[in-house]
């Protein structure tokens, strides 16, 4: 929402300058995005008169002018075809920065003739597109004065961000009302702002105290509403015999200052009233209408060419204004091209209607069409302002286009039911934390247009659709009184010792994250969405966005691997050789969002080193090590984990696995990525990864802080080595687990320390060497006891097809 200080002062009687206004706007909740003064850069440009013009001795297209900008004649070389003696224009002296071409003028010789400045075009001053020649001002423009001042450009421009609840501040007058309530001045009566006076005698006049309907001299136009739900009120007045020519200077100046291009006086009147009062209007060329103008539901497939030059196809949920022949207006959003006014228009119909805000919002969303009118109607315009809005529009038309007005048609009833709230001024203290005396609250509310009775029954102004509870009234009082008055009140501290505030799941996440970082992985955060192609090797996405930003960010990730693999590849492309990345985030599955920590190693697991002279590429065992380390840190019972099957189709079938407490309790998947997966992700292998399913880790039973009683044994533990020949395809952990189970009392540790195939080992077999630690309980082992244990170990191993090597 843009307006200038001068425009504001049409409604607000104040001496405040731009800085004071900006400060007040921010304090009361109208966020100032920008304050600028277009005159600042134009101030050095002065009105100057060309005294003489002579041909340039060296160039046909140039002239040598003598220019007076108030300080006597100056020689200026000029290339404009319209430069001539007697012309009054705009002059920039040497040292002046010219905004259009972005250059600073200096004294220079042009084709051998000294030039002391420049006569400017509008385009060079960024005041328009006109570049046919230099600016020609009226002959009586005062030579030597600042052009910006002369043209009324010295008017600070505000750009205010109006929040969606403040429909009333979508008009300059609403903003003026808020500022007046804040105490920055007084709100002028509307009739005064619109110079609405009557002559009371010879040369004397007085303001009307209110806006008066314009009396008509011809029959009221034929309009009606057949859709009272969406368009409950359709007011209209016609004016015949108008001329649609130039817009009055004061109006076009305001519109230009806020960046709107003046079009024609009739269009500009509707634009001006929309910005000034937040009241959208529409003006139809009556010559283009046939029959009654009716607010009705559109027919499915009906089309309208709108004023923005685009054709919209409508459906039966939308409400339009149409005559017997066609649709002329997408009700409350945008008018149609066919009945739009032109410079030949002589008879007009002015529409001032009320549209249901929700309906306007939905239609606008459905058509993807925004407009100044939609912005106002969907927030909800003042339903009690139809008569005044129509009268102001008609008067502006009569004043600036001539003609005679018709009588007024008032079809339907705007929803102006009076709304009241029972308010208790103590709510300000209860909600805001500071006290504002009741009479002061009453004054604030009344300045904002509320009615306040002695018992604090508050009547809500018709233009404040956003107010529907006492909390809203508290906000009104607090924002006008000033949020800086809110005290700083400490929250009460809970009694006693602070309790942990993180949930068990969060504690697991923290440990897992810092464990991965401690093991040399850099934490990345990658997009939660992927392309369908990237998701495919992971079973595809379960959640597909209906409106993705791009095909690359379309489905919610079923795995964290693709994002990390892609990031790893980008690092590899930059020349990184040993890439260790991890991410802790969610996988988005059909039934739930699963917190997951994924580590990924690309390239070397160990860098090239002077001891060995070569690097070691990452392999699936590196991924397994990381999976176990993170699981251990996260509190998983890693000594009870089993290897369950390969990882699945995403992974190398022979170099991947799952770790779990059983086939239905998988805690992690690890391994080398399948070459097809790498290909689908567009990355180079080998890459190894481990996904740790944090939500699958069983929660620790809360058994209090004290540990179980423990006394280290005083007896010496014994170590024994065994070597077994086993089938080549036997999983080693089957053997170690079998051995560990051979004597659960005595065997405290089983570790595999060698795997060997080759000389001495029969084809189809492998040799596994295992160290077993035996801990005596109450007396040291004697030979017989040791032999008994060894026999049990060999027997248990034999059940797995293992034979003790002789």
């Amino acid at each position, binding site marked *: 929402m843009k307006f200038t200080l001068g425009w504001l002062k049409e409604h607000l009687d104040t001496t405040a300058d731009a800085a004071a206004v900006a400060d007040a706007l921010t304090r009361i909740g109208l966020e100032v995005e920008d304050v600028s003064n277009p005159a600042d850069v134009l101030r050095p440009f002065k009105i100057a008169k060309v005294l003489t013009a002579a041909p340039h001795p060296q160039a046909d297209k140039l002239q040598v002018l003598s220019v007076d900008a108030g300080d006597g004649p100056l020689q200026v070389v000029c290339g404009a075809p319209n430069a001539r003696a007697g012309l009054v224009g705009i002059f920039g002296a040497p040292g002046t920065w010219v905004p259009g071409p972005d250059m600073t003028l200096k004294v220079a010789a042009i084709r051998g003739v000294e030039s002391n400045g420049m006569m400017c075009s509008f385009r060079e001053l960024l005041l328009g597109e006109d570049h046919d020649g230099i600016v020609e001002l009226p002959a009586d423009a005062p030579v030597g004065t600042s052009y910006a001042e002369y043209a009324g450009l010295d008017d600070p421009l505000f750009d205010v961000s109006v929040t969606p609840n403040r429909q009333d501040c979508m008009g300059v007058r609403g903003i003026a009302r808020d500022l007046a309530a804040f105490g920055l001045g007084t709100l002028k009566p509307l009739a005064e702002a619109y110079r609405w006076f009557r002559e009371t005698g010879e040369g004397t006049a007085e303001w009307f105290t209110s806006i008066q309907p314009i009396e008509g001299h011809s029959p009221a136009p034929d309009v009606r509403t057949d859709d009272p739900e969406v368009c409950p009120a359709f007011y209209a007045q016609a004016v015949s015999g108008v001329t649609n020519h130039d817009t009055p200077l004061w109006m076009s100046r305001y519109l230009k200052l806020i960046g709107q291009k003046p079009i024609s006086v009739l269009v500009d009147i509707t634009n001006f009233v929309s910005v000034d009062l937040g009241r959208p209007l529409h003006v139809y060329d009556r010559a283009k209408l046939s029959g009654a103008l009716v607010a009705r539901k559109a027919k499915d497939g009906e089309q309208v060419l709108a004023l923005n030059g685009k054709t919209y196809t409508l459906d039966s949920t939308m409400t339009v204004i149409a005559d017997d022949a066609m649709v002329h207006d997408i009700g409350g959003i945008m008018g149609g091209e066919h009945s739009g006014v032109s410079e030949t228009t002589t008879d007009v119909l002015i529409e001032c209607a009320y549209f249901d805000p929700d309906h306007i919002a939905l239609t606008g969303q459905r058509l993807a069409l925004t407009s100044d009118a939609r912005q106002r109607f969907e927030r909800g315009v003042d339903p009690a302002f139809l008569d005044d809005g129509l009268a102001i529009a008609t008067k502006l038309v009569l004043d600036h286009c001539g003609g005679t007005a018709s009588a007024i048609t008032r079809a339907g009833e705007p929803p102006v039911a009076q709304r009241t709230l029972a308010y208790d001024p103590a709510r300000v203290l209860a909600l805001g*934390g500071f006290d504002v005396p009741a009479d002061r609250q009453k004054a604030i509310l009344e300045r904002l247009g509320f009615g306040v009775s002695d018992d604090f029954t508050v009547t809500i102004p018709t233009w404040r659709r956003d107010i529907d*509870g006492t909390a809203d009234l508290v906000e009104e009082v607090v924002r006008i009184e000033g949020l800086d008055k809110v005290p700083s009140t400490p929250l009460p501290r809970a009694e006693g010792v602070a309790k942990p505030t993180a949930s068990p799941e969060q504690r697991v996440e923290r440990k897992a994250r810092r464990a991965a970082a401690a093991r040399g992985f850099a934490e990345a955060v990658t997009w939660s969405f992927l392309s369908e192609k990237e998701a495919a090797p992971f079973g595809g996405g379960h959640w597909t966005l209906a409106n993705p930003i791009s095909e690359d960010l379309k489905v919610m990730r079923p795995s964290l691997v693709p994002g990390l693999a892609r990031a790893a590849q980008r690092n590899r492309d930059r020349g990184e050789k040993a890439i260790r990345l991890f991410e802790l985030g969610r996988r988005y599955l059909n039934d739930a969002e699963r917190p997951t920590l994924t580590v990924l190693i690309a390239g070397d697991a160990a860098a090239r080193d*002077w001891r060995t002279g070569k690097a070691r590429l990452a392999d699936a065992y590196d991924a397994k090590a990381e999976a176990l380390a993170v699981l251990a840190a996260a509190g998983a019972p890693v000594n009870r984990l089993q290897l369950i099957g390969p990882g699945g189709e995403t992974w190398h079938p022979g170099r991947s696995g799952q770790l779990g407490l059983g086939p239905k309790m998988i805690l992690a998947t690890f391994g080398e990525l399948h070459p097809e997966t790498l290909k689908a992700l567009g990355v180079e292998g080998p890459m190894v990864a481990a996904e740790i399913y944090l939500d699958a880790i069983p929660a620790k039973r809360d058994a209090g802080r004290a540990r179980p009683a423990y006394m280290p044994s005083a007896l010496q533990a014994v170590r024994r080595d065994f070597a077994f020949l086993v089938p080549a395809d036997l999983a080693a952990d089957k053997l170690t687990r079998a051995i560990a189970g051979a004597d659960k009392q005595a065997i405290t540790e089983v570790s595999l320390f060698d795997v060997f195939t080759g000389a001495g080992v029969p084809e189809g077999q492998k040799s596994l060497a295992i160290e077993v630690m035996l801990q005596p309980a109450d007396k040291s082992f004697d030979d017989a006891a040791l032999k008994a244990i060894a026999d049990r170990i060999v027997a248990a191993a034999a059940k797995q097809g293992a034979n003790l090597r002789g």
Partner: protein
Amino acid sequence: MTTDIDQLKTDILAANTAAPDIATWDSVRVAALGKQGSITLLLKTLGGMSPEERQTTGARINRVRGEVSDAIAAKKAELDRASLNAKLASETLDMSLPIAGLGGGSVHPVSQVMDELAEIFADLGFAVATGPEIEDDWHNFTALNIPETHPARAMHDTFYFDRADGEGRKMLLRTHTSPVQIRTMVTTPPPIRIIAPGRTYRSDSDATHTPMFHQVEGLVIDRGITLGHLKWTLETFVKAYFERDDIVLRLRPSYFPFTEPSMEVDVGYTLVKGKRTIGGAEPDGWMEILGSGMVHPKVIAACGLDPNEWQGFAFGCGIDRLAMLKYGMDDLRAFFDGDLRWLRHYGFSALDVPTLSGGVGA
């Protein structure tokens, strides 16, 4: 006799001192203290001495024997040390050779800041809550007093799924962490003090917006909570987070459908060598950092609580932006790129765990 013994001692000690190696030293030792050694032979003469002679000469012989054997033992130690030194000298390695990389990983700034926030708010009694990122439109909008036609829905560029939940609610990616407020109020009886950090999504992508970003939500529901408590909480939080006391906040009235009154909060900055630095008692300007307000009575009612009994405040704040303001990153997009160089530079050590005792910053 006396002269002989003294001479003998002098000769042995001289030979012992001069011995260049263990072999020479050993021959000196044998020549003096061996079975046929000169000192041993002298000792054997004691047997033929009179008691008087034993008193005098015998004592002298014994004294000389002690001196000689001490000197010989000392020489042995000296030679051993020299030989060990020579051996060690031959074992010298180039200690300037590099060891394998230290291999330190790093924690992402977003995670670190979330941990910092959890620590700061734990001190104020706030628990950490979470909620789903794939939300339904009731939790994300309707319960937050944002009906379907509300213009505020247009402020949120929402990602939708072509799916509805069992109750026919449209599924979407949450546009803010505020639905966690709703989920908490629906399930937890007041009093409530939570923060809810997490991922949020809007279909927005330019230099300063990414389609995915991080927010933290705060919620307090209790009896008698006012704007004053909100102001204090935000001041305490911002001061603790930026680790300085001279931070000034500016509250501006604003609008959010789910709070009433609503306000935006700006933090004052001062210009230090032309760079905006958070803090300073006399701010040079203001930066918007969060939105907040008193929870709207309709929101409290939508969660099944009585707004006449319970009231409170809520706030929401961008975590990525908080990280940038504190740790000096200036490009949001780099947060999500996984560039190891960036992660090493802006990331945190695994052991930099924010604590109240050790400080929340790192």
